[in-house]
C-alpha cells in the first residue's frame, strides 16, 4: 500500500513535469513534440535521478554520522563543488561539460580533504571529526568562492550565484546517460550496506558485536554517498533539503530499516525533485527559479513540522 502510494506519487510527478512547462504543448502532440522529447523528458528523468540520489545519500549519511540532521552536503561537498564551478566560470572554461566536470573535481577535492581529516590521529572516520572537517572544508571553500565571485563581473556573478542554488536547465539525454551509468554502483554499495546501517544506529561498538564490520561499512558508505552526491551536484548544482527531508518523511512511513528505507528515499527524493523542478520552471515562466530555492521553500516548512513532531514525541 505504501509502495503503491509512493509509486503513484512518483508517476504523477514525472507526468506533471513532462506535461507542464512554459511552452504550451497540446496534449495530443505530447508524444511528437521536440520540446517534450529533447527538453522535458530528459530534464524530468534527470531531476528524478538527482533527487533519488540525494535522498539515498542523505538517508545513509544520517545513519553513518549518527545524526538525524545530516544532509548530503553537510560534509563539505557543496563548498568544494561550488568552488570548482565558480573557478570554471571565472576562467571562462568552455564546452558543455566544463562546468559539471569542474564542480565534480571540486567536490572530489573536498571529499578527499574531509576523508583525510577523518583519519587524523587514528580517528577511523569518527563521525564527530567528519562533521567538523566537513564544516571546516566547506567554510574554507566558500570563502575562496566568495573572493572569486566578488572580483568577477556582473554576468559571471549572476551565473555563479544561480549555479550555487541549483538548476536542471542543462539537462540533456547525455547528462541522463552519464548519471544512469554512474549512479548504480554507489547506489548498490549503499543498498548492500542496509543491514549494517541498521546496526550502526545503536552505536559503533554494539554494531560491531552484532556482526557489522564497522570500519569497512563506514568507509564504503561515506565514499559511496559522497560520490553519489558529487555526481548530483556536478549536473545540477547545490540542491538542498531533498537529502535532509526525504529520509525523514520516508522513515515515518517505512520505519528505520534501511532495506526498505533506502529504496523509498530514492523514489521519494526523485518524485520531490521532479515536482520542485516543474514548479521552478513554471511559476515565474518564462523565467526560471533556481530549483534549490523551491526545495528550500517546500523543505523548510516540512522540516519545521518534523521538528515539532520530534519535540512532542
Amino acid at each position, binding site marked *: 500500500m505504501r509502495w503503491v502510494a509512493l509509486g503513484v506519487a512518483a508517476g504523477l510527478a514525472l507526468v506533471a513535469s513532462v506535461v507542464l512547462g512554459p511552452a504550451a504543448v497540446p496534449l495530443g502532440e505530447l508524444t511528437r513534440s521536440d520540446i517534450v522529447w529533447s527538453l522535458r523528458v530528459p530534464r524530468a528523468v534527470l531531476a528524478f535521478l538527482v533527487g533519488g540520489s540525494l535522498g539515498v545519500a542523505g538517508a545513509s549519511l544520517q*545513519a553513518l554520522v*549518527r545524526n*538525524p540532521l545530516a544532509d548530503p552536503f553537510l560534509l563539505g561537498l557543496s563548498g568544494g563543488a561550488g568552488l570548482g564551478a565558480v573557478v570554471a566560470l571565472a576562467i571562462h572554461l568552455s564546452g558543455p561539460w566544463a562546468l559539471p566536470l569542474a564542480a565534480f573535481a571540486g567536490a572530489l577535492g573536498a571529499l578527499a580533504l574531509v576523508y583525510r581529516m577523518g583519519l587524523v590521529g*587514528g580517528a577511523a572516520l569518527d563521525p564527530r571529526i567528519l562533521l567538523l572537517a566537513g564544516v571546516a572544508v566547506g567554510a574554507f571553500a566558500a570563502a575562496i568562492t566568495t573572493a572569486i565571485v566578488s572580483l568577477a563581473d556582473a554576468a559571471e556573478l549572476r551565473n555563479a550565484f544561480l549555479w550555487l542554488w541549483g538548476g536542471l536547465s542543462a539537462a540533456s539525454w547525455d547528462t541522463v546517460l552519464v548519471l544512469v551509468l554512474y549512479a548504480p554502483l554507489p547506489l548498490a554499495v549503499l543498498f*548492500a550496506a542496509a*543491514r549494517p546501517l*541498521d*546496526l550502526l*544506529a*545503536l*552505536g559503533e*561498538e*554494539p554494531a*560491531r*558485536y*552484532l*556482526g*557489522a*564490520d*564497522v570500519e569497512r561499512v563506514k568507509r564504503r558508505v561515506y565514499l559511496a554517498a559522497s560520490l553519489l552526491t558529487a555526481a548530483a551536484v556536478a549536473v545540477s548544482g547545490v540542491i538542498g533539503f531533498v537529502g535532509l527531508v526525504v529520509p525523514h518523511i520516508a*522513515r515515518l512511513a517505512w*520505519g*528505520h*530499516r534501511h532495506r526498505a528505507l533506502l529504496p523509498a528515499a530514492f523514489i521519494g527524493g526523485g518524485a520531490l525533485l521532479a515536482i520542485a523542478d516543474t514548479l521552478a520552471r513554471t511559476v515565474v515562466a518564462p523565467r526560471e527559479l533556481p530549483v534549490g530555492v523551491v526545495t528550500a521553500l517546500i523543505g523548510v516548512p516540512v522540516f519545521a513540522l518534523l521538528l515539532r513532531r520530534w519535540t512532542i*514525541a
Partner: protein
Amino acid sequence: MSSAPPILSLRDVRYRYPGATQDALAGVSLAAGPGEFHAVLGPNGSGKTTLVRLVLGALVPAAGRADIAGRSAHLWPRQDLARVVGVVPQREDNLFPQRVRETVLLGRYPHLSLWGRERPEDHSAVERALAACDAVQLADRWVWTLSGGEYQRVRVARALAQEPRLLVLDEPGVSLDLRHEMALFELVRGLVDRAGLGVLMITHQLNLAARYADTVLLLADGRPAAAGAPGDVLTRETVERVFSWPVTMQLLDGRPQMVPLRQPKEPLA
C-alpha cells in the same frame, strides 16, 4: 568429570593502549566453557573493559592469546563471531525510535545473508529470546518507554537472539534497582543452567557475583589479583587490598558476602 572444550580462552594476555606508559592488562588467563558463569571484578580502571575488548577481538593482544573456539578473536570475521558470542554492551543509544521486537530482531542480523529477508526461523528465534527473558509482553512497546530493568532484559534478549554459545555482559546491573538487578542475575544464571550458555560478566556487584558465578577473576591495575571459586578469591585481605577499603566478610549459603566498614572518624585537625 567432563571437560568441555572452552569457548573462550585467554592465555597470559597483555595489552597496552597506544601512547600509554603501562600495560592496561597483563598476565591474565581465563577459560570459559558451556554452562559456566564467570564474573570479572575489580575497581575502576583495573582493566575490565580492556579484557572485554580483547575477548571480543576489538583489541589485539600484544602478547599471549585471546581465542574464541580455538581461533584468535580478532581474526574472526565479525559476522561469524556474532553467531558465537552475544554481547550486552555497557552503553548504546538508539538514534531512531524502535520497537522492542525490532531491536531484538537486530540480533538475527549475523544469521542473515546480504539481501535475504528474515526467515520464519529468525522470527521464532526472536520470540524464544523474548520468552527466555520474560519480555514477550514488552514486544510491541517503544524502546524509549521501557524502564531500566525492562531495557536490560530486552538487550539480553537481543543477544540471545544471536543464538550464541557465549554471552558477554559488561556491567549489566548498573542503575538497576534491587528487584531488577536480582531478576537479571537470576535470568543469567538460569540461562547458564538451563541452556548451557557460557557467561562472562563484568560487574561491580561483588556480592551478587559471589553468589551467582562459578568463578570470579579479581583484577587490580590490570593484573589478576586472584582467580578461582568465589570462596577462595573473595577473602577479607584480598578485597581490602584490591579495593583499598576496610571490609568484613560473612558467609551466606556457603558464599562469601562482603560488608564495607565505615571509616573511623578522624578528629578534625
